[in-house]
């Protein structure tokens, strides 16, 4: 009798636990587990959305890795954006945040000036940059030529297209500036005072007081930045289209990553393969590669620093 009661209690307890967990379980199943399993499933299928999916083994994987000519350039570009753009954005955002928290007058004006570009719609901002950096008619190159500096081809030159994109991302660094400002203002003043009493220099105060205090925020900025860089789609696509002069509309072909595939990113491939070619299997392969990369980057960053985990505690 007591055994039955114990078993019944355990069952009820388990059901209660499951009931409390059910919102998360449903959310996890619908928004993560199902799409994830589906993506894995379709990566081994030949499926165009009309005919029933058929088993194709590793054909899609072989195609993407060995025969799809845009995969490796897109992967290289995505990694470039992750490493260079994220690093520069975090450094620049931190520098602007430090600057604005230090200045005595006009803080509000500068804060507004640096934050406003972040509010510009990505398509409009990219088109404006493409206009400003137009090698033939853009004002930037006109100024550079007038002062005797060689004018780059920017979005029309494969060597300069990614640096031009980086400039665009740095221009819209207002989001990072705001969170760094909040973190910097949150550093206890007593710690700076104690450091000053100990004779610490400006660099030492930054290195041993500021940096440890804001490291969880830096970690947050890096992880979200890496994920955003890996999802980068709009700006490279628009920049390539505007610079090429060929607007992809009805009747025109998909031109990947003008100039010379230098602005091609993995999310562009997912759209092209999945929703223009309707080769869902290959699109799923690229999506899984992107997912794996995100996991690798996140795991690497979390293990190296552990900043977010400390903050959570």
């Amino acid at each position: 009798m007591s055994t039955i009661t114990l078993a019944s209690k355990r069952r009820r307890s388990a059901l209660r636990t499951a009931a409390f967990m059910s919102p998360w379980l449903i959310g996890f199943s619908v928004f993560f587990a199902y799409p994830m399993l589906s993506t894995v499933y379709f990566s081994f299928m030949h499926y165009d959305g009309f005919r029933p999916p058929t088993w194709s083994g590793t054909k899609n994987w072989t195609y993407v890795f060995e025969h799809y000519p845009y995969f490796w350039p897109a992967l290289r570009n995505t990694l470039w954006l992750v490493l260079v753009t994220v690093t520069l954005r975090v450094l620049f955002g931190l520098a602007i945040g430090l600057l604005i928290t230090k200045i005595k007058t006009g803080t509000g004006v500068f804060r507004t000036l640096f934050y406003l570009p972040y509010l510009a719609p990505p398509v409009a901002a990219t088109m404006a940059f493409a206009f400003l950096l137009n090698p033939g008619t853009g004002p930037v190159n006109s100024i550079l030529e007038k002062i005797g500096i060689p004018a780059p081809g920017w979005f029309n030159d494969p060597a300069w297209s990614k640096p031009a994109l980086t400039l665009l991302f740095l221009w819209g660094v207002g989001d990072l500036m705001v969170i760094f400002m909040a973190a910097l203002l949150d550093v206890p003043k007593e710690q700076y005072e104690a450091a000053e009493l100990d004779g610490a220099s400006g660099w030492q105060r930054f290195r041993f007081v500021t940096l440890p205090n804001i490291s969880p925020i830096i970690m947050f900025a890096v992880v979200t930045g890496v994920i955003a860089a890996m999802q980068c789609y709009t700006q490279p696509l628009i920049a390539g289209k505007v610079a090429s002069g060929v607007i992809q509309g009805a009747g025109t072909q998909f031109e990947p990553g003008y100039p010379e595939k230098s602005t091609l990113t993995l999310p562009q491939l997912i759209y092209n393969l999945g929703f223009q070619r309707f080769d869902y299997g290959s699109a799923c392969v690229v999506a899984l590669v992107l997912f794996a990369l995100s996991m690798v980057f996140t795991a690497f960053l979390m293990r190296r620093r552990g900043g977010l985990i400390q903050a959570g505690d």
Partner: protein
Amino acid sequence: MPIPFAARKTAFALTVLTSSLALLTTACTGQSSSGASDDASANTTINFWHAWSAPNEVKAVNALIAGFEKAHPNIHVNVVSNMTDDKINQALRSGGDKAPDVISSFTTNNVGKFCSSGALVDLNPFFKKSGIDPETTFPKAMNEYTQYDGNRCTAPLLGDAYGLYYNKTAFKKAGITSPPKTWTEFQADAKKLTITQGDGYKQLGFMPDYHGWETTTEHYAAQFSPTYFTSDGKSNIAKDPAFTEAFTLQKNLVDGLGGFQKLEKYRATLGDEWGDKHPFQTGQVAMQLDGEWRLGMALATKPKFDIGVAPLPVPDDQVAQYGKGYITGTIAGIAATSKKQNAAWEFVKYITTDTDAVVNFSNAIHNVPSTLAALKSPKLKYDPRFKTFLDIAANPNSTTSPASINGGVYLATIQNFGYDYESGKVKNLKSGLEATAQQIDTDIAQAK
């Protein structure tokens, strides 16, 4: 706190159950039937999605539909404009009451994909039922680009023909008395018309770069009458000398007119294709490869020179075929998911084969009529120069790019090779064409 074993089991079971159901559901969707059992004489409403968006074009489409509804008072057409191919493709897959029964697309390159996937129904039985022979109704090239592998899943709904626009005033100044008929004459004229200024141009004879909007690989190649695929469906671009000649011609033009870097720098300063600052319209470029629509657009900007129109040149050994050109156009088809296919056919039949309907539509949006009868109709109203495009469309030597199972992917692959070749990134044309052909075959195999 560790999660109790029972809870973990429940969570796992729920996840697996949800995923399995979802997978099963997914595996069973996306199919369509092609049974046409509806009564076309009953009162019904069909959905028509098209890509036209300019106010005058939308007005013309509405007039076309009004004509149909007058002739078929029992069939009402619910029209949706400005639909891109991506949206159309997605709607054709999803189906439902709001999905289109009839679609029209500007992208003839997608016909192979529409037909092979079964997204659009084969119109051959409908044509047969109505006693219409497509071979004698539509021009040859239009007949070709509306079907794939014997499956005619689309019909032409007006067309585009490509020719040569030239600045008559600049020609006169340069001492050129007539438009070039061969590519040799064309190259000489392009150089004569080019006036350099500093490290740029005051006037460029011709913008040969593949990014020069309509100067695409397929438009050049059409003048050499190429065969894109062998009879067994393999890419023929490495074997057919037409491609070698077309790529060589373009490269010679690029090198002869100042080189790729100089031309690209100049191109970056030019206005866009669809605006008033188009370089042909502003006089910055003296000759332009373009479609029939350019005439109306150029005249609307009131240029300070006389516009001449002629067929594009041909290779020196094909002078007898002067007058041919590249043909493409808008296509119309019936969704496989439509439950009103007979009513939809009445609509498609009217807009694509009724001579007066085609002529009126052509008069309204200045595209080339897509039936042989309409091309000869005395009701056609046009600028005398537009006749050049009507003749190109009717010319039996005019060509198009054939439908492929993966749509226009092979054309994009050829075009991308063109970018590499014109820029000098690829130097060996022969091996480059072989690699491109191999890539096309691989892409097609992947799509099958």
